[in-house]
């Protein structure tokens, strides 16, 4: 069977969608591919139609989803626990085994499974945790140039700018990006410079302008990475307004911080 599509890319995820649960990263990768590949979107349509005809018959197949499709969408909405969710605590431990040999790491994983305790707690007791985290403080630069800390409930004006300061441990981000999805769904992305300063915290060069954003609640994602962040992949990933953990895993970056910005009024352009 030819495993690549007309664009020379793998059809693996298109087929996998109908065979098993996809994790968040795989689903994002699939969406990014389908948004640009007519050959695979057509294959997906045919597989979906075949599944529907097999399940609910040809008369209803054009308008109604099949039971398995209903289940898939429910999982996408995070209303169902998938097989991937059930084992995610085990898969997420890979960063915590720094300094241990592979054999000891496997034994520790089995021991944790048997003990059935939250793995993070156990690893902390054993001193084996490498804390990897990055957090951000937001500051607002007013139209008059005055700087103030951003308060969660405060309303922002679109004439203002957002400035970031990052703190981190166990990681060294070299790239920081900010993506804002405003109330109308419009996306803007700013790639900021590498943080400069102390080993555990620094001000991020540059600032993010809010001009042009629709009034209402906007979602701001601050992404720290060890490599350049693919803007197209980021744009596709945040279109569905994922939570921070899902975005971090799907982009395979160091850390993601998600905030809600209340934009009170729009400036005329």
């Amino acid at each position, binding site marked *: *069977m*030819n495993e690549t599509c007309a664009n020379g890319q793998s059809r693996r995820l298109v*087929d996998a969608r*109908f*065979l*098993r649960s996809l994790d968040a990263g795989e689903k994002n990768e699939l*969406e990014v591919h*389908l*948004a*640009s*590949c*007519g*050959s695979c*979107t*057509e*294959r*997906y*349509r*045919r*597989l*979906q*139609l*075949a*599944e529907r*005809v*097999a*399940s*609910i*018959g*040809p008369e209803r*197949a*054009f*308008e*109604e*989803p*099949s*039971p*398995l*499709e*209903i*289940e*898939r*969408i*429910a999982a*996408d*909405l995070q*209303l*169902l626990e998938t097989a991937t969710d059930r084992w995610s605590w085990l898969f997420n431990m890979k960063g915590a085994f720094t300094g241990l040999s592979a054999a000891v790491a496997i034994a520790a994983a089995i021991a944790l499974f048997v003990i059935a305790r939250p793995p993070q707690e156990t690893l902390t007791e054993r001193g084996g945790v490498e804390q990897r985290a990055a957090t951000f403080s937001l500051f607002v630069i007013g139209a008059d140039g005055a700087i103030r800390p951003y308060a969660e409930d405060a309303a922002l004006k679109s004439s203002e700018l957002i400035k970031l300061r990052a703190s981190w441990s166990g990681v060294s981000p070299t790239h920081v990006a900010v993506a804002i999805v405003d109330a*109308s*769904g*419009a*996306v803007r992305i700013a790639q900021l410079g590498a943080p400069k300063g102390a080993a555990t915290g620094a001000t991020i060069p540059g600032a993010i302008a809010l001009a042009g954003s629709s009034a209402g609640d906007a979602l701001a994602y601050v992404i720290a990475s060890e490599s350049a962040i693919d803007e197209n992949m980021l744009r*596709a990933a945040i*279109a*569905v*307004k994922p939570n921070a953990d899902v975005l971090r895993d799907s982009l395979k970056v160091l850390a993601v911080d998600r905030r809600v910005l209340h934009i009170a009024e729009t400036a005329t352009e």
Partner: protein
Amino acid sequence: MIFLENRELLDRFRRGDKQALLETYRFYVRDVSRFLTRGFSFDSDGKGCSFRGFRGGYEIEAAIQEVFRRAFEERARLAYNGIDPYRPYLLRIARNAVINDLKSRHPILFRFRVGRPVIIETTPEMDIDENVSAERTPEELLETREVSELVAAFKAKLDARSLDVFRARFEEGLSAEEAAKQLGLTRSKVRTSESKMRAAFLEHMQRSGYLTTYKQGGGDATRGIAAAMIVLLSSWSLS
């Protein structure tokens, strides 16, 4: 109508209880799918317009997901008054999601078009709430007939247990646990049988040629989106 008959469910729904959201989703998902597939009429800047509906594929799944994601946001849950029927409220969310996306410079729902552009037609005066029933083209009817024959050929080759699992999971939509209970099997056996069957079904459809050689259609999704934007920008005044 589930909320009118079950106030306890409504309370849990308003609180964002996941089981309540799941129950609501399962009750209304087919209605939303039919609505999005059939399309609808709407008014834009005084002009009557008609959206022809989604045509299947990933775009309809993404659209259904987006509608329920919006409907299950806290603001939307609390804005529902609990007295009027929920279905029209939900379909209004679906309608607004589509109309807003049609006007957006960065569409979300129409990223996955299968070649054909989004067609917005100005129509003679129509009832603004009318949900137009989308007619099937002869090609679409022929395609479903072909697929039906392929499916029948696949099912004819299944052994008795596989057929039981097929009916329980594919047709009745039972969970693996429910199917296991009904069939007197372990959940693990149901899962294994289903997994093999899904792979065999995919292989069957691939070997039949349906997935690759049946009807050269589809086209380039990016061209489809570009064409959609041209249709929209030329016929609308974006406010």
